[in-house]
């Protein structure tokens, strides 16, 4: 049976959409004579549109095939699920990508796949598609490819030389979770390619110093993703794991994906459960604190309080638990101390550093520098003075900060009051 590209695209996009990663950053490559495309010069990457769920769409995110020999309980593509199946031919996928790219719809390709026959065969198909793009169409844009756990190291090597970023998903935050929900996958099989990519990247950097024209291996590094809310793992466990991955595997990003129930199973939360979006949001906030603000996982959470407070962001929580650290003096504190103040970010902390070289700063200057005073006012002094008329106790401070945060969170759904309450 032959299926047209439109139908295939629909099926394979639908199957790929639960993957959170969609970035085009981490590599700067200018144009090359005779090639089409470059990668963005901005550190933040380049978003081409935002889908109805508010997530950025940068890359053409599709699966090579959604046929899968595995039966992971949490996945829409597991073999026991009754769903439409399709697979792109490498040529179809390359044509689609290059034509979307020419029209500036996308920044590049994000190629993943269900396991078709076996991991090696799947990877070969993916490599063929990317090879057509790179060699025949001379595509110089961004490519993010997924390394399939269990594939031969030689194939990971080939993929790394073609793609900008590689990723292997660890899927679930704990090995017990993996064992119950994805019995065909093991932690070792996921971590093996991750280690290989890391070792190979370091080696590649050394080679590049010696020989300028050495082919680059995954120049934008690697990332991973885990599903949050499908297993009973705590936030502390997830955050520690994340920190370990950054420390030990030098990942560029760890993505969290709130579990969207796709199937009724005794092992999983019921199908009525809403995806834990707020929890995912808090985890991302903490992830930023780890990567850019110099926090450690142990500072943010501990065994007594292993989950994030849904009412407050992790940085505010830390600040409330450490009154001895505050107030911070804007005109004297170093960059690291400024970063720990709620309401101050990387940009505004930098601006404070440069602005105070021309003269002492007053609190009135701070909003113009991008400081969110609604939060920061409780933790800052300028020339030893706090904001005029500001009085608070530990208790009222907590209440005020929660009030500030509340307006930013999605409001609980209003329910029409009914005389005959039938929903018992």
């Amino acid at each position, binding site marked *: 049976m032959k299926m047209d*590209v*439109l139908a295939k*695209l*629909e099926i394979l*996009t639908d199957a790929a*959409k*639960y993957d959170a990663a969609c970035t085009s950053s981490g590599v700067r490559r200018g*144009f090359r*004579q*005779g*090639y*089409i*495309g*470059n990668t*963005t*010069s*901005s550190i933040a990457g*380049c*978003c*081409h*549109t*935002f*889908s*109805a*769920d*508010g*997530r*950025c*769409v*940068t890359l*053409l*995110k599709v699966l090579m095939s959604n046929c899968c020999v595995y039966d992971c309980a949490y996945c829409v593509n597991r073999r026991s699920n009754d769903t439409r199946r399709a697979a792109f031919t490498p040529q*179809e996928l390359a*044509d*689609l990508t*290059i*034509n*979307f790219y*020419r*029209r*500036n*719809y996308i920044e590049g390709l994000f190629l993943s796949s269900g396991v078709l026959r076996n991991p090696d065969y799947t990877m070969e198909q993916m490599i063929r598609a990317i090879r057509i793009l790179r060699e025949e*169409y001379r595509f110089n844009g961004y490519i993010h490819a997924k390394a399939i756990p269990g594939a031969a190291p030689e194939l990971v090597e080939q993929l790394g030389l073609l793609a900008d970023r590689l990723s292997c998903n660890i899927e679930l935050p704990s090995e017990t979770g993996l064992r119950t929900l994805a019995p065909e996958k093991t932690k070792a099989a996921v971590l093996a390619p991750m280690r290989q990519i890391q070792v190979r990247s370091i080696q590649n950097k050394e080679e590049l110093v010696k020989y300028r024209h050495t082919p680059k291996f995954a120049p934008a590094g690697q990332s991973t993703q885990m599903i949050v809310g499908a297993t009973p793992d705590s936030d502390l466990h997830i955050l520690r794991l994340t920190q370990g991955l950054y420390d030990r595997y030098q990942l560029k990003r760890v993505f969290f994906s*709130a579990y*969207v129930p796709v199937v009724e199973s005794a092992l999983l939360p019921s199908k009525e459960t*809403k*995806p834990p*979006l707020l929890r995912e949001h808090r985890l991302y906030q903490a992830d930023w604190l780890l990567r850019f603000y110099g926090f450690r996982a142990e500072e943010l959470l501990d065994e007594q309080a292993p989950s994030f407070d849904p009412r407050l962001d992790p940085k505010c929580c830390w600040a409330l638990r450490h009154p001895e650290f505050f107030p911070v003096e804007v005109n004297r504190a170093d960059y690291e101390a400024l970063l720990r103040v709620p309401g101050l970010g990387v940009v505004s902390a930098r*601006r404070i550093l*440069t*602005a105070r*070289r*021309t*003269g002492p*700063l007053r609190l009135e*200057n*701070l909003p*113009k*520098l*991008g400081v969110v005073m609604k939060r920061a006012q409780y933790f800052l002094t300028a020339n030893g003075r706090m904001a005029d008329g500001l009085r608070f106790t530990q208790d009222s401070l907590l209440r005020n900060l929660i009030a500030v945060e509340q307006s930013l969170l999605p409001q609980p759904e209003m329910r029409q009051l009914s005389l005959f309450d039938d929903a018992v």
Partner: protein
Amino acid sequence: MNEMIYTYDGSFEGFLCCIFDSYANKEVLTAITDDEDSAPILFPVRAIRTDSGHAGRVLRKLHKLSPYGEELVRRGFLTCMEEREIRLYRLVVKLLREGPSFLRNFSDETLHPVATAVRHLNGEAHLLKGFLRFSDLGGILGSEIEPKNRVLPILRSHFCARYQNEKFFIYDRVHHEALFYAAGKAVIRPLADFQMAPPNETEAAYRLLWKRFYDTVAIRERENPKLRMTHMPKRYWSTMTEFQDDPYFTPQSSAAAVPVPGVPAGKPAPGTPPAPGRPAPASAP
């Protein structure tokens, strides 16, 4: 010192000449405008003649004082800031009088409005690098945008590098100018009006593919219209493929009826011959 109003021809060089002449004539400016009729009549008006030699001297002086200051003036001139000329003029005056140290203080009252406007311009240009959509019109890529600021000079290097071997044009509907690129040369020219030709079969097919992809990739359980609008304000939607109505995705029946838009007759666009017939690098699926 006399207080004066200067009028100029609306070009960047003309604006720099206003600064030059205000020093040459020892006059303080209360307004600079390119529209003589709208100038307030409280102060005497002087029309400034554009002299590229004078403009160059002002730029060189700015560059010597602070390359960042020069960048602010160049980019600030492209923004949609209110009273843009006079604010930039005051920035230059302060720079000449006090030196460049105040440029480090983002909260400085002369710098802040200009720096904010330039950030707005840069932000809009950055978003448009992603939100701009091309249509393949017989081998030439065409696009229309509706930005608040004049972003074309900033978009130029990005798109010229990305589509180096293509021919393309971007039409700015708001400021009535267009960027043309072909064979390594890019020019920006005023263009009064432009109508995009309807799509041919291939183009319509890809538009539809993209729309289908866009509609499918959203996760229904996570729908969040407010978040989408924060990242992608609605004013950009009008020129984006995924938000168009049905006719946009219906091809013109006969392929021959698709005209090549390119450059209208009589408009100067060196290096941009509207050569039709060149096949697209990649064929239809």
